[in-house]
């Protein structure tokens, strides 16, 4: 059998050839941000409608599971909710008091006009990344709905991630908890900048991501401080909530702090997201 097919390239050479092609892909991707070009777009466009269909069925199934509760569960839940309601009403009055203060703050940071004024479009997550190492996902809207690379993705009022590639009917999003993600952030009240990096390890352990390079003179920034995207970031629009500061420790350089941040978005149960349809103008191009 082997003798007959002598004209074929031997497996060893084929392996070396294909391996070299792989290395070329890596270099292209490193230099030129190559993402598979037209083949990638076509392949993903073929997968997207089926993934959408399965996601519909899947989310309906999980909703059905959530619906099928017993009466006992419902009554206990009802009681819990009543208690919660009381708590919330008392909290509400407190918050109403604080809201005037908040308004002033918002004006200070011009959040209201920047954050709520953007055009957004809703999208569903239809597929997760193929392996356990990276936190990317596919959404069911693409260029035909006006989504382009580098647009910001938000949900529940917090930052989810950024579009890294978009085809006609799908877009790939890298979430901020992905290990390769870095976002330039700042503390809402003091405006001190910092870097928020996704971290697989601390995300798996305790649902938190890392914060580094935080300037914190006189330890003014306490845990619970909201961290938002900074105005010096080149891809993220300013003033989008990333999460709340959890704990910090002084770095060995005694100038900056690093620690952990609890993301504002519940990434485990994320199904719908909003894509902000305007990109940050940096004047770069």
């Amino acid at each position, binding site marked *: 059998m082997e003798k007959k097919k002598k004209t074929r390239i031997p497996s060893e050479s084929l392996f070396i050839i294909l391996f070299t092609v*792989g290395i070329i892909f890596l270099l292209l991707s*490193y230099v030129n941000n190559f*993402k598979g070009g037209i083949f990638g777009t076509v392949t993903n466009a073929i*997968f997207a409608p089926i993934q959408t269909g399965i996601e519909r069925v899947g989310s309906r199934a999980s909703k059905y599971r959530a619906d099928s509760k017993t009466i006992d569960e419902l009554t206990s839940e009802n009681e819990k909710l009543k208690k919660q309601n009381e708590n919330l009403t008392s909290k509400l009055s407190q918050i109403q008091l604080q809201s005037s203060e908040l308004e002033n703050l918002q004006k200070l940071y011009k959040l209201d006009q920047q954050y709520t004024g953007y055009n957004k479009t809703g999208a569903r997550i239809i597929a997760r990344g193929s392996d356990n190492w990276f936190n990317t996902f596919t959404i069911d809207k693409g260029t035909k709905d006006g989504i382009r690379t580098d647009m910001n993705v938000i949900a529940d009022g917090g930052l989810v991630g950024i579009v890294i590639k978009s085809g006609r009917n799908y877009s790939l999003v890298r979430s901020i908890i992905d290990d390769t993600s870095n976002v330039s952030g700042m503390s809402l009240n003091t405006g001190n900048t910092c870097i928020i990096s996704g971290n697989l390890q601390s995300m798996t352990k305790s649902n938190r991501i890392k914060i580094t390079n935080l300037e914190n003179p006189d330890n003014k920034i306490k845990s619970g401080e909201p961290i938002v995207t900074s105005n010096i970031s080149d891809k993220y629009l300013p003033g989008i909530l990333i999460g709340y500061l959890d704990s910090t420790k002084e770095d060995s350089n005694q100038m900056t702090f690093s620690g952990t941040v609890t993301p504002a978005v519940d990434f485990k149960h994320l199904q719908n997201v909003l894509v902000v349809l305007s990109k940050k103008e940096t004047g770069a191009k």
Partner: protein
Amino acid sequence: MKIIPILKKAVVLLVSVFILNILQTAVFPYLALGGVIPNLLLVLTSFYGFMRNRREGMIAGLLCGLVIDFSSGTLFGTHVIILLTIGYLNGLSRKVFFGDDVKLPILFVGLSDLLYGLFIYLVSFAFRQSGDFNFYLMNIIIPEAVYSVMISFVLYFIYARIFIWMNREERKVEHIL
């Protein structure tokens, strides 16, 4: 004459990659165990290498790697390189360990997944993070390998049949020639 069996094989491979990728990205996230999903495309590559041969293992690895790279945020080519290598190494091992035993292909799925985990860790994590290897080993690499091995028991019986059918088709062609 020769082109038809190759075409049939290509269709089987493409359909397999298609279905397994859909399962991996859209279905298994609902079935994650401890936050980990199995690596079905790696199982496919390993089977093609170990139960068919080096060449088909490589081609399966190349296709699977491309499909993963298309939809992931890493440097394009990372998964191509590792899955290509896994397909090839599995094909090489076939020469050493030969037999129709169920245990061996599944053992090699496990080994392949460990290799895959090590590679991704080395390429994308070891240099950037303060490299707590133990954590990644216990929380991602080993659970993923275990889950993949579990799933590969099911896939083994499907692919054993498909490969028997392929062998038969190939022999038919040889008769004609």
